[in-house]
């Protein structure tokens, strides 16, 4: 029995029409996380990991990770999104999918860019980011949390992702792991090569063709700590 996909029914309500709905990229990320579920549970069962999802959108991945992948693991779980509307959607998704066994564990949602305003320097144990990866003009990347913030990625679709990669060293704990969604046009192999120069070991853990694009889920650790 696999981990059930979280219920996100409320996204069909008119107020949430501008929130990115779970799609092929979301499901590829869920599958990659589920693949690692046992390893992550074992690693963190007594450690109270800090888990962060940046750009939680519908909250589907956060609920899946918190209540499924990390079932019975106490964690401090923070989800962030630049869109307040997405934060509200995530909040409802978390509440709806909460399992009774997790009543004691902790999650919260913060309306911010990346992890701005969060004091988590070098302390995030599991970091998850499904970024806006669609190549667009730079000016199409919105400064505010409109729906375009969910997909518009600027040059090569990498402008938003690059900002996060630049600060990964400040975010990830010594033994932390980072899951990133990319498409072929982001040049995932290039990303892995570049991150190796910055001290991170990357691998392409899941490749899937969906519609006109090829999705890759990348996973990064620190090379040494």
């Amino acid at each position, binding site marked *: 029995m696999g981990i059930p996909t979280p219920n996100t029914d409320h996204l069909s309500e008119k107020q949430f029409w501008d929130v990115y709905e779970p799609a092929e990229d979301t499901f590829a990320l869920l599958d990659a996380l589920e693949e690692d579920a046992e390893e992550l549970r074992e690693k963190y069962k*007594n*450690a*109270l990991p*800090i888990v962060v999802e940046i750009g939680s959108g519908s909250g589907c991945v956060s609920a899946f990770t918190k209540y499924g992948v990390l079932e019975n693991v*106490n964690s*401090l779980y*923070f989800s962030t999104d*630049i869109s*307040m509307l997405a*934060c*509200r959607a995530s*909040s409802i998704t978390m509440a709806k999918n909460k399992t009774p066994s997790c*009543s*004691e*564990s*902790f999650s*919260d*949602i*913060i*309306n*911010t*860019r990346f992890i*701005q*305003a*969060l*004091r*988590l320097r070098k302390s995030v144990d599991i970091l998850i980011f499904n970024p806006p990866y669609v190549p667009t003009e730079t000016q199409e990347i919105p*400064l505010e*949390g409109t729906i375009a913030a969910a997909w518009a990625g600027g040059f090569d679709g990498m402008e938003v992702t690059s900002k996060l990669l630049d600060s990964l060293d400040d975010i990830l704990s010594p033994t932390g792991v980072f899951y990133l969604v990319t498409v072929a046009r982001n040049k995932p192999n290039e990303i892995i090569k570049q991150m190796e120069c910055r001290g991170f070991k990357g691998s392409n853990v899941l490749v899937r063709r969906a519609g006109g694009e090829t999705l890759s889920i990348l996973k990064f650790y620190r090379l040494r700590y």
Partner: protein
Amino acid sequence: MKLLTANFLTCASKKCSSSPDAFPLNISDAKIAIQECEMNPEFIKNVMLRVEWPALVKTTQQLGNNTLPMEKPELTDESDELLFKSLHNVLLETEITEGKMTCGSCGHVYPIVEGIPNMLLSETEV
């Protein structure tokens, strides 16, 4: 947002990042909801390793709760049950549903609306 989250939030402005006045943010006009849940002593012991104690005491006092000791307590299995209970109440059961968080360095006010803190600054403010 949970009271514990305030222990992880600071001003989003880069100028304030090194200021001791930017953490914790000062909470005012708060509406509190208590969400009762079962106590898990292991969780409390673990979370204490992550907590900045003086900031937690300050935030708790700003919400009108003076039950925490000024010094960070050493928790063992024999620790006072009342201490565990008040920590559990503060760390996990206390939700701030509405309120304001003000940076003591630059004065920026971050609103908490429907339980979600809005930590966004405009690009020029960052």
